[in-house]
């Protein structure tokens, strides 16, 4: 029985198949947009390369963001459609968790940070793979201060598209910008479907104002 992992949360459109005791099979394309067009053919390709049928899947895991709102929904809708029609569990993997798992093994703490535009990052700090708190969206300078406070002098290495925005004396950019599909699939394999549903994780609420310009989420 096999695991399918999907990532459409950023420019990459990727699928990985993991079968017990065998090498993972990966198919990926780097797209600016158009994940809705390419994802299903890529999944079909990776299943064929792995020599399995859709009915051989025991679980589907998907990157739920933070990332492109539309991209994440493409992957999540597809994953949930597979889960529904194959009667298998689906799990969602947060891209920050996948990024932290993809950073090189260095002593100390790891911060995963994604650039969410408008000078802001969404970040989460990890110690030995375990998160220290929930993801937080903040102005880059505020994130740096918050991370320094939590690190309390310990070295911090960073990963993700937001890493250049928070690079500082105490935060070392590892240069990892995108999570590793194999590491993310490890998380997908271990995740509890009840605790990690395939539900999009959005970095921001919808851009919509109430009449009179009132921000409904303020």
């Amino acid at each position, binding site marked *: 029985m096999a695991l399918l992992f999907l990532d459409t949360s950023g420019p990459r459109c990727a699928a990985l198949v993991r079968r017990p005791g065998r090498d993972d099979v990966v198919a990926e394309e780097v797209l600016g947009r*158009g994940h*809705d*067009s*390419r*994802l*299903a*053919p890529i*999944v*079909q390709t990776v299943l064929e390369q792995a020599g399995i049928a*859709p*009915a051989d899947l025991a679980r589907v895991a998907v990157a739920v963001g933070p990332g492109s*709102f*539309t991209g994440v*929904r*493409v992957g*999540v*809708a*597809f*994953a*949930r*459609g*597979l*889960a*529904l*029609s*194959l009667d298998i569990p689906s799990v969602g993997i947060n891209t920050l968790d996948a990024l932290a798992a993809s950073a090189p093994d260095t002593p100390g703490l790891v911060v995963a940070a994604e650039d969410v535009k408008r000078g802001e990052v969404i970040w989460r700090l990890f110690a030995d793979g375990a998160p220290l708190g929930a993801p937080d969206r903040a102005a880059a300078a505020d994130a740096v201060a918050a991370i320094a406070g939590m690190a309390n002098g310990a070295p911090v290495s960073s990963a993700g598209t937001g890493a250049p925005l928070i690079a500082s004396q105490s935060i070392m950019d590892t240069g990892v910008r995108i999570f590793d599909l194999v590491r993310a699939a490890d998380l997908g394999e271990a995740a509890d479907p009840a605790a990690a549903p395939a*539900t*999009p994780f*959005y970095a921001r609420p*919808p*851009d*919509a*104002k*109430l*009449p009179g310009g009132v921000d*409904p989420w303020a």
Partner: protein
Amino acid sequence: MEPARDPAATQSPAGALTVLGFETSCDDTAAAVVRRDADGAVRVLGERVVRQDAAHAPFGGVVPEIAARAHVDRLDAVARRAMADAGVGFGDLDAVAATAGPGLVGGVMVGLMTAKAVALAHRLPLVAVNHLEGHALSPCLSEKVAFPYLLLLVSGGHTQILMVRGVGDYQRLGTTVDDAAGEAFDKIAKLTGLGLSGAAVECAATAGDATRFALPRPFRGAPNPDFSFAGLKTAATRAYQSLDSPSDADKADLAASFQAAVADVLADRVRTALALPAAAEASAVIVAGGVAANAVIRAALTAAAEDAGRPLVAPPLKWCTDNAAMIALVGIERLRRGESDQLDVAARPRWPLDPAAAPALGGGKKGPKA
């Protein structure tokens, strides 16, 4: 790339076709299972719809990002319930269909990706459906109407007159050059504080004097059966704003005057269309879309159709407004013609039903909207 159909997985009765359809192009999350028997009888075996009115109401209109988020959270559960209602399993399906446009593309992608997943998982044909084609064929869910017929589609998103000559054969005779009729109704409801949707205007209008405000009838008498509602909306807005602290009676009069203007225009445009040579063979006038629920408008359209010797047919409201049964039905009809789509088919925010029709709205470099 075409997913091969696996005949062993198909358990529809001999000659019958069973299709699961999804509709997510605006603010309704819908799934339906429809079967066409060998004798041509069409039955909706199961259908579920979850509306999002409450989520959008505070904003005074559909917010695309809110709609897309709601669709992805709900569609799988909605589909599961529709399948359970129908009493069929995924292995019993002959195809899966989804709206692929035109509409709010973030929501369209949710339905289309879910359909692709089902198609891939069960090696079923995928049918990417034009939402407008769903409306065009929707009368066939409940009525026995013969092709060709004249279709007036009047909703919050569309106002068009089409000649439906057969499946896949549509000629657009007229369309709005600005707002949709339902959009104008919604605007008046909000302006007057009567409510959030056009239904509130109809409700208030029952107590109003339709002759109190002299509102324009845009395009009435024009040779082409096109529509315009922006000027009428503006005139109604000005009339309302000229009132000093409007009373309930004032609001009722404005609602009645506005509704009468829309009814007059719709009836006039249908009369004009029926007089065109292109509509000579129309067997009936079909009205679809949420505005078709308005009794005053329906009466005006009935008169226009009957004056031209045609019956007016309005499908039940649940199939007049956005629904997944009509999408599954298009899937069945396309499948019967041996047509299906590849798994790389993309969502199309713009997708005119009659590609030969000149753009009247949104006719920029991206082409006509609908």
